[in-house]
């Protein structure tokens, strides 16, 4: 099987994020592989291992697909060190400030040219948190959408079944190849790259392409940020020590604020 995993480099979730001219300042923060994409890489590895592996000459290949600045090779390298075979990074100055629609258009072109059977994504990125790219990819490619999966079962003959878990309940879904999957974080426990994996990743190919090489033109963002203001910091309020009356103090506070 040919499996693709979409990965994104994001600002470290511990870092303080700022808006500059209506877009997230990505230059001046530590950047890492999106946490939630690690589950997608792990799931791809798990599926490959279950069906003949992805070693050289193995039955499966796992390709990471990413879009971002050149610096995103660091995050992509992490996925390679976990065990993916190779990677494609679309990097082009014209893509700065792309929205999810533009991003999904570029990724969809790379995916459709690659002839994959399965595309796996995380459910969201920890920076924008929109959760829309997997659905957009499915719509653009015309492939089945199997998203918010807490369990994935692959029949290499060409069928995927998932358990979808959302606030609306639990659904069992299935579809024939090719499919777009997104996985929730409880699906697996992503492996730590081994020393061997890290060394091997240094030799793996990251195919950097600009938009011309991909064969799409840049699409400007279809929504604009007109204003961004830091939220006034919350000031600490009253703090009391519980000397047997903490519960009562709490009730008085609630009553005073008319919350009970």
């Amino acid at each position, binding site marked *: 099987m040919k499996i693709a995993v979409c990965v994104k480099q994001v600002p470290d979730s511990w870092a303080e994020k700022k808006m500059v001219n209506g877009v997230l300042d990505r230059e001046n923060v530590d950047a890492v592989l999106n946490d939630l994409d690690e589950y997608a890489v792990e799931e791809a590895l798990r599926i490959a291992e279950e069906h003949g592996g992805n070693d050289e000459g193995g039955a499966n290949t796992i390709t990471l697909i990413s879009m971002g600045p050149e610096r995103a090779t660091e995050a992509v390298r992490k996925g390679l060190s976990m065990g993916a075979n190779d990677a494609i990074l679309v990097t082009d100055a014209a893509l700065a400030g792309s929205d999810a629609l533009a991003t999904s258009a570029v990724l969809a072109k790379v995916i459709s040219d690659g002839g994959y059977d399965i595309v796996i994504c995380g459910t969201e990125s920890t920076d924008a948190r929109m959760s829309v790219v997997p659905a957009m990819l499915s719509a653009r490619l015309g492939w089945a959408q199997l998203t918010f999966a807490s369990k994935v079962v692959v029949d290499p003959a060409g069928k995927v079944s998932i358990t979808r878990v959302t606030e609306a309940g639990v659904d069992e879904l299935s579809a024939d190849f090719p499919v777009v999957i997104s996985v929730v974080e409880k699906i697996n426990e992503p492996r730590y790259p081994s020393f061997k994996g890290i060394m091997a990743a240094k030799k793996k190919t990251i195919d950097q392409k600009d938009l011309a090489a991909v064969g799409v033109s840049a699409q400007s963002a279809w929504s604009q940020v007109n204003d961004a203001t830091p939220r006034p910091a919350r000031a600490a309020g009253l703090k009391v020590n519980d000397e047997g009356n903490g519960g009562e103090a709490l009730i008085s506070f609630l009553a005073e604020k008319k*919350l009970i």
Partner: protein
Amino acid sequence: MSNVFILADFSGDKASKTTAELATAGARIGSVIAVVLAPNGKGAALAATVNQGPVTSVLVLESDDFSAHGVAASADALANLVKEKSPTALLVASHAFGKEVAARVAVLTESGIITDAIDIAADATATQSVFGGSTTVLSKVSHGTPIITVRPNSVEADFSASTPAIESATATIGAEAKKARISSSQPPVKGGRPELTEANIVVSGGRGTDGNFTAVEAFADSLGAAVGASRAATDAGWYPHSHQVGQTGKTVSPQLYVACGISGAIQHRAGMQTSKTIIVVNKDPEAPLFDIADFGVVGDLFNVLPKATEGVLARNS
């Protein structure tokens, strides 16, 4: 006057509170037409429950493909309706299903999309709270039909009764939207407690519960609140993942958030710091969450919560 579409949101077989919130936000932009996607034969009954908030009319689309093929089928029907009727904007609830439907409609109608709006102005400018609530952003769609997902519990809903006209339209769903097949669906296991993201009050427990949520649950029940949990508590298996509040869990912004035995890692804050009022109960006086608490009690939650629960019950009796 221009028309605004809202995708009616249901809890079981009744329109949810979120539907009234979407209608309230939509009415600022134009007359609200609530779109109801229903199984064959169920449209009229579902439409009849869309009777709160400023809804001008209800448009019912019936098809068994909605339950058989999920997100893609719903989005396809909605996108075709949007193309045909050209509303000024489309508002959808910001949950997993709503966001995915909105995402597909944006692609299919070549329209810009904004997710997780917490407010909407008359010119369809959306307010978002981003980066874990640290920044407030005003955005506007500049291409196609503005498609905006609105976070439940953010817009103060007008719940006044309405008697919208009910009409029906044809659900047009293409073959590409039927590729995923749903073989079974189970509604969420509902306790007697409100939905976490829709609740006015949320009481959450963390590491300090040491795995025992009874005090947290009892206090929540006395207040009619939903129960949340920190990632530490859900990872330890003490409480279901579906109740996790924080960056990788749910984002909540209730009127009152009570954090019990939660130190307040930045990931947890990201999911709750837009709550109107925050109360923190923690043994550790240095817990970082005290820094953003309107009221804090330094003490053991197993001593503080039972007394507080008694206090609430006594007031209500």
